[in-house]
């Protein structure tokens, strides 16, 4: 499903966080938004997820999210926030089942189909052995997989990921990103993510969007966005960009 954002503006407490963002994500494409702290990356994702007052249009396959009921929207867009709430005492299977909420009637209960999908997502994310455990007792990498499993249980064609690897060590970062890439291909998901690690962002995204002060300042395949000029200008960082096998490698250097 195509995600089209045009002239998106978000004002929070009188401050304009997003100043007219245009962004188009093709069906099945993975676009990662990068940018310095405070550039508006998370705000962009929240606005697309529909949880912020905004102006401008966010179209999901041609339909404006403003015209969708919450449940319909939740069937089209699934979000993994940067720091998901870990409810005390909740078991992994119950947590993943929460992803089926948009399909369960307000006073109803889950169907066999819902349970089948939960089971399938648990298997896909290698969580079957953890299903009966409490979410709190899982390690960082396992939790991240549970967060993903809940989002995937929404069976939504568009997946929003806010810093999906920020809490993980380097090995688990790669593992989770590979997993997302596999799932994206298998389920033909459209992925819009934000990331801080620039090299990893470039290796896994089809396209990068560089956001600075609430506006898109560069967009394109990773080698076009991850350049020493753009990064030093917008991040005020001293970096060296080295060509790698799967995209540019960004290395910070001391002056």
């Amino acid at each position, binding site marked *: 499903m195509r995600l089209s954002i045009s002239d998106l503006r978000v004002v929070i407490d009188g401050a304009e966080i997003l100043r007219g963002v245009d962004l188009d994500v093709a069906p099945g494409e993975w676009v990662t938004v990068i940018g310095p702290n405070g550039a508006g990356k998370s705000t962009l994702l929240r606005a697309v997820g*529909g*949880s912020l007052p905004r102006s401008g249009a966010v179209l999901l396959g041609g339909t404006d999210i403003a015209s969708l009921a919450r449940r319909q929207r939740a069937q089209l*867009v699934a979000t993994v926030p940067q720091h998901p709430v870990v409810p*005390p*005492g909740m*078991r992994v299977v119950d947590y993943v089942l929460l992803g089926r*909420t948009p399909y369960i009637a307000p006073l109803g209960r889950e169907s066999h189909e819902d349970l089948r999908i939960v089971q399938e997502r648990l298997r896909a994310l290698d969580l079957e052995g953890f299903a009966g455990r409490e979410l*709190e007792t899982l390690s960082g990498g396992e939790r991240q997989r549970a967060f993903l499993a809940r989002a995937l249980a929404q069976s939504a064609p568009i997946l929003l990921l806010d810093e999906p690897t920020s809490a993980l060590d380097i090995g688990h970062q790669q593992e989770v990103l590979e997993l997302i890439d596999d799932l994206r291909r298998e389920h033909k998901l459209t992925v819009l993510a934000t990331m801080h690690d620039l090299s990893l962002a470039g290796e896994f995204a089809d396209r990068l969007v560089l956001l600075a002060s609430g506006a898109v300042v560069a967009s394109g395949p990773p080698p076009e966005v991850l350049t020493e000029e753009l990064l030093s200008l917008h991040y005020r960082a001293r970096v060296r960009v080295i060509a790698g096998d799967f995209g540019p490698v960004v290395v910070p250097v001391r002056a």
Partner: protein
Amino acid sequence: MRPAVRPSKLSPWWLGAGVAAVAVALVLGVSLGPVSLPPLEVAAQLLGLDSGLDEREAAIVTQIRLPRVLLGLLVGAMLALAGGCFQGVFRNPLADPYLLGIAAGAGLGATTAIAMRADQVVVPIVAFVGAMVSAALTYVLGQGKNLILAGVAVSSFLAAAQTYVLQRNVDTIREVYSWLLGRLDTDGYRQIKLLLPYALVATVVVLAMRRELDVLSVGDAEAASLGLHPQRSRLILLTAAALGTAAAVAVSGLIGFVGIIVPHIVRLLAGGSYRSILPLSVLFGAAFLALVDLAARTVIAPGELPIGVVTAFFGAPFFVLVLRMTRTVSL
């Protein structure tokens, strides 16, 4: 295909245990007292069978003890259900109608109504208004800060207002004071008839929405991204639970800590999903308060302890226990 791991739901075993607990509390509560009656014969009498009790004993059962035990069951069910519901709505393990100031709000409303010699039917309604106002106050004052401390402040303020109302109406002070300490006094089935409609509405609404309480446990932003209207769900749940609390307070006064003890024990035993916590809180809350009442009226017999004093005696240490065990620091 049958999924290997099944989601939490109400276990039939715990449901059976809850029903059994209610039955035991009912029979014991009716059997024991100044004149003790054989429990088996009492059970037979309650089931409408030939019990072998004489006329006087049968009258003790149906006219004196049964209404009181039923009232204990109803009030206990309401307070425990409301406690469990508030804990989910506020995402706070220490939430309880008493600690949030909601009972105090209901108390001020009821005191005012009694002092003004309003009709007994009006008392729960005024108590409900007080409960809703105090719930809103606590929520607004404690939002993002410390809900329980806000509840303490609201409680103290309302208690002061209540004392003022009392002092201005000294002629009703005895009546209000004995009610304030928490009591399950009955004259026939009048109190039960008063409480029952509110209790039914509150129970049906809260139980119907118990799944949404599980969704609310991931916070408003995530619940909204899952298709819920968190504020709307919370308002409905809060209103229903406050209604149940207010009605219970109007007939029985301020009985604290039931709403914190019962849902916590249920949570420890039967799992953390509100789908089982809430229905089991109704059953075990009912049994718990009926048994506490039994203790309150037998321990210093022929005297009687105010039931609110007994629940506080056990509840306050329990509260500290929960406080020490709770991992999340935010109150």
